[in-house]
């Protein structure tokens, strides 16, 4: 274990705390949005605020925290990059899979949805 902690300053606190708060706010936004929109497709759409963006913030916060506590290592950076890649890219693609499945299901769409492109 690389033990090379940074000295804790207000900046390190902010480096950890602010992404955490932002991430949490993303989750909150997603939760509210998910409750506001009227169909499953809309919810799939808005949730990526949390799963994509919110998670990235938390990963950054965690990385900052570990770096502050134990110092920077390349291994940690690699892990963080993989994690960001996974949430930002892979999970987003997965939500397309859900979206298609939802659209192809019997779930009614929001009746106000403009679907004229589907009629062609």
């Amino acid at each position, binding site marked *: *274990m690389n033990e090379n902690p940074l000295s*804790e300053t*207000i900046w390190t*606190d*902010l480096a*950890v*705390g*602010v992404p*955490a*708060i932002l*991430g*949490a*706010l993303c*989750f*909150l936004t*997603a*939760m*509210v949005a*998910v*409750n506001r929109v009227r169909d*499953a497709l809309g*919810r*799939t759409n808005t*949730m990526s605020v*949390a*799963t994509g963006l*919110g*998670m990235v913030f*938390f*990963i950054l*916060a*965690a*990385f900052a*925290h*570990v770096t502050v*506590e134990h110092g920077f290592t390349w291994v*940690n950076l690699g*892990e*963080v990059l*993989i*994690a*960001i890649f*996974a*949430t930002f890219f*892979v*999970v987003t*693609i*997965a*939500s397309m*899979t*859900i979206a*298609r*499945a*939802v659209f*192809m*299901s019997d*779930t009614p769409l929001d009746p106000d949805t403009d679907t004229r492109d589907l009629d062609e």
Partner: protein
Amino acid sequence: MSTLLAWLLGAALVIMALSLVGTALRIVFDRDDETRIVLADIVYFSALALFALFMMWRESVVALDVMMIGSLIGILSTVALARLISRGRR
């Protein structure tokens, strides 16, 4: 841990707890399976986020490991649940 960080993390924790419970309630009371599956993703990542927050209080040697593995395999349950909606159709 400094007071500022404690406050920040505490606030984040409260917000997360709120959104987690809100999502969970929605899953319970929504009759709509498709919505539930969408929300399952949020719950999953909320849990990872909570883990991240907790580990900032208490040391964990696996903090980043878990964030990484958790993100990597997040796709599994998402796709699996999507397949549930389509009853296996790809």
